[in-house]
């Protein structure tokens, strides 16, 4: 039995007996996962490569539905509903639960249009409202200073770290409840990484955050809760300081002390 902390804080999301199977896989790639995601906190997922962190993360915004044949079981409760239900409005869900990818993914358009993209999809057309919200998002993502003078320029002219902030600005512009980060700094240099980590900590005032990282130090630095995954199972979820200092599970201890991974 895994050790999952029972949190007393408000929960943004609650996962119950969740299973996920990729098309063509004979057994579930994620097995019987139950976990809370605390509201306005950072929850990190760690574990060796291939253990299912990305797969779990991409279940929260139903990214797996873009490819045929994948199947879910169990429940992911968000705002009182199970988002795995057939009738879930995927478009709306994805504006409520945003995602930042492993590599910066600036669209081939201007900086302004990148950040305005989700807003326009939501049907916001008013020029001054768009401008205000783009500015606010860029400020919240701490990239306004570098971009304010060149909003009309191609976003691909920015550095990797700047592009990743731009992607964060783009995601927060639509004011989601939850943000999913999949190893957001794995393609970045140490200075940019530090900046993104600081930003994640600031962002939790407004959103609940789930971050996948294979870097334990990063999990320790940014998160309030940490989950350790292994071979498709969630082995342990606890307060970050507890999990790293006094893990309950033998596997967790072995992993964080570097015995495997």
């Amino acid at each position, binding site marked *: 039995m895994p050790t999952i902390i029972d949190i007393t804080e408000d929960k943004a999301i609650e996962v119950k007996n969740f299973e996920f199977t990729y098309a063509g896989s004979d057994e579930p790639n994620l097995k019987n996962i139950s976990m809370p995601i605390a509201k306005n906190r950072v929850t990190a997922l760690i574990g060796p490569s291939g253990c299912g962190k990305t797969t779990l993360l991409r279940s929260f*915004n139903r*990214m797996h539905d*873009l490819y045929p044949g994948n199947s879910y079981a169990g429940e992911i409760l968000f705002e009182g509903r199970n988002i795995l239900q057939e009738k879930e409005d995927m478009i709306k869900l994805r*504006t409520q639960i*945003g995602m930042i*990818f492993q590599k910066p*993914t600036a*669209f081939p358009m201007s900086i302004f249009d990148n950040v305005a*993209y989700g807003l326009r999809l939501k049907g916001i057309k008013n020029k001054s409202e768009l401008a205000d919200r783009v500015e606010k998002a860029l400020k919240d993502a701490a990239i306004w200073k570098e971009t304010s003078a060149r909003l009309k320029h191609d976003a691909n002219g920015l550095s990797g770290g700047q592009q990743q902030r731009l992607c964060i600005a783009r995601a927060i512009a639509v004011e989601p409840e939850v943000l999913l980060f999949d190893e957001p700094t794995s393609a970045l240099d140490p200075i940019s990484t530090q900046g993104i980590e600081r930003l994640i900590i600031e962002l939790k005032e407004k959103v609940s955050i789930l971050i996948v990282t294979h870097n334990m130090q990063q999990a320790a630095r940014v998160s309030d809760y940490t989950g350790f995954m292994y071979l498709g199972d969630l082995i342990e979820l606890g307060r970050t300081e507890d999990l790293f200092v006094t893990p309950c599970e033998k596997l967790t201890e072995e992993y964080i002390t570097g015995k495997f991974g």
Partner: protein
Amino acid sequence: MNRFLDRFFHLSTLSIALLTLLVTGAIFGVLLDEAKPAMDALGLSFLIDTKWAPNLEKFGALPAIVGSILSTALAMFIAVPLAIGVSIFLSEISPQIFKTPVGVSIELLAAIPSVVYGMWGLFYFVPIIRDLFGGLGIGLLTAGIVLAIMILPFMAAVTRDAMNTTPDILKESAYALGGTKWDVVKDVVIPYAKAGIIGAAILALGRAIGETMAVTFVMGNVHKIPSLITDPATSIPVALANEFTEADGALYFSSLFYLALVLFVISFVIIAFAKYAFLNRGKRAVS
């Protein structure tokens, strides 16, 4: 040893590259040389004269020039949107099981020799156009459609390849912001593949404007500027293919070379212009 190989490789590729320049130059030189008598006799008014009457030693190239441009424009007008539609279907919409068979059949269509399109056009298409629009069935419209059908598979295949290079993670990013499939195609896939799509269109344009066999049978070889889209017309390659064997007089013969020279220059100018206008400017506009 390695340095020697390197040097050998460098020299051999360089000389092949130079050879292509040399061949192009030589072709241009021969055209110029053979066209010289007609250029001296007819001057630039060759380009704007509308009368082509070899027995009267009258040679005006305008109908063939207009026919070339109109048939090509018509073909592009039909083929470009269709090719983009087909490639959007193949790269983004089609279920996986259709992608390969449909993709392969499009590549096969692209490999059919153009004379086959011409024969097919003459025997199957001409009667249909005749029934639908009246007239002879042979003319500008038929030529434009047959040309469009001929360049469509090629353009669709290249455009699809360009669209397939769009990284999944970029498309997913747009879906993750609440985009629909159409949003992703329009805002991510097409802009990302833009240079490839335009490149494909330019290559298709180059094929269409010089195409001979596909249109020879269906255009009519009438040196007259068409007043209706269904009127018979001619294009430069059609005139060349039809008339070289019967060019008896020296001026007639030389005029055909002059015509070929005009085609050479038109193709060159259009393709250079299209490259400049769409590729360079496209790049500068976003950066």
